[in-house]
């Protein structure tokens, strides 16, 4: 039996977050007036969305403006196609940011502009191609919430990586700041039995780039070099 209700009682971002975190394969049907939309989930990600002729992440941006309307979430419905490649948390964050800006400018109108694609995930994917043994890369805010992520395998828990890396880097920065004459942290490289974790603060001062790579495959110099190169690109690509 599908989970059903009204968006007045359960907001769409909450529905998306819960479904993704439970890693369900599911279809979320939404209806408001004469409009009907569908969002498909699989393996902890939103993979497809449709609203009339519109498909993909633009649908999500549009639906985030719905605060009223019926919904029904059905489990085990296979997605007919894949039109979304962006991590769900990044997509929600982009969409909600755009919605906030739009509503503050238009005094409450629900229609808002579709934000430009940030391209952060694409840059992370490119980074993944350059680093041998690449496991995952994330761009996270200082609060530990990721704004973009890319992993070589769906089994990698990028949310966990984001949270752990941020917590660690913040302690490292505090430690160095308290130790006089040591300067300002550029990056931290944690070597473990199985992996290297490299964390670098981006130039904007508000985000970290975290990269995880397999210990026995990665070349350390190559990893550090590419973290510097891609940190610059990511910093420029983050929406201001």
């Amino acid at each position: 039996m599908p989970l059903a209700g009204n968006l007045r009682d359960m907001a769409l971002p909450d529905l998306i977050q819960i479904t993704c975190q439970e890693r369900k394969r599911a279809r979320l049907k939404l209806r408001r007036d004469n409009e009907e939309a569908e969002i498909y989930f699989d393996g902890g990600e939103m993979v497809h969305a449709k609203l009339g002729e519109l498909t993909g992440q633009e649908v999500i941006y549009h639906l985030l403006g719905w605060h009223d309307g019926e919904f029904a979430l059905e489990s085990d419905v296979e997605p007919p196609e894949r039109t979304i490649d962006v991590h769900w948390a990044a997509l929600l964050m982009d969409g909600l940011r755009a919605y906030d800006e739009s509503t503050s400018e238009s005094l409450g109108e629900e229609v808002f502009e579709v934000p430009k694609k940030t391209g952060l995930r694409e840059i992370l994917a490119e980074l993944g191609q350059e680093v041998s043994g690449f496991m995952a890369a994330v761009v996270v805010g200082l609060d530990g919430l990721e704004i973009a992520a890319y992993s070589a395998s769906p089994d990698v828990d990028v949310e966990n990586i984001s949270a752990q890396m941020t917590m660690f880097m913040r302690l490292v920065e505090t430690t160095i700041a308290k130790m006089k004459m040591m300067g300002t942290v550029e990056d931290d490289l944690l070597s473990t039995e199985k992996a290297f974790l490299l964390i670098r603060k981006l130039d904007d001062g508000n985000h970290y780039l975290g990269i995880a790579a397999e210990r026995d495959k990665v070349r350390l110099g190559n990893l550090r070099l590419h973290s510097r190169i891609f940190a610059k690109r990511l910093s420029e690509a983050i929406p201001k």
Partner: protein
Amino acid sequence: MSAIEQVLREFRNELGSEFLATNVVGMDGLLIATEAAGAPVDVEAGAARFAMVMKLAAKVSERMKLGDVDDNLITTDKVFVLTRFLGDGSYFWGVLVSKEATLGVVRLLMREYADRLWQAIPR
């Protein structure tokens, strides 16, 4: 000079002018031995603070299922700070070197000296 201080002195001599300071610290944050090249660093405070960093490093690695921590390297605009667990993980070794140091050499030397330092810690 104790056995552990002798090992640290030998390590310092191998690194040359890039060496700034080193210490061996218990995971309770208390300093066991130190060697410095006049670097203006509060070694006692550093021992306690970096013990916290190493404890969190171990926790992060455990939560991410990445196995035991070998070492941690912090790069700042002025220095490199390398920390490495010794023996059973009840102590760690910290090394502070200037940015002119050859990182690969420092890491290699630390791997070579780690076991000697562990053996030299009085029990």
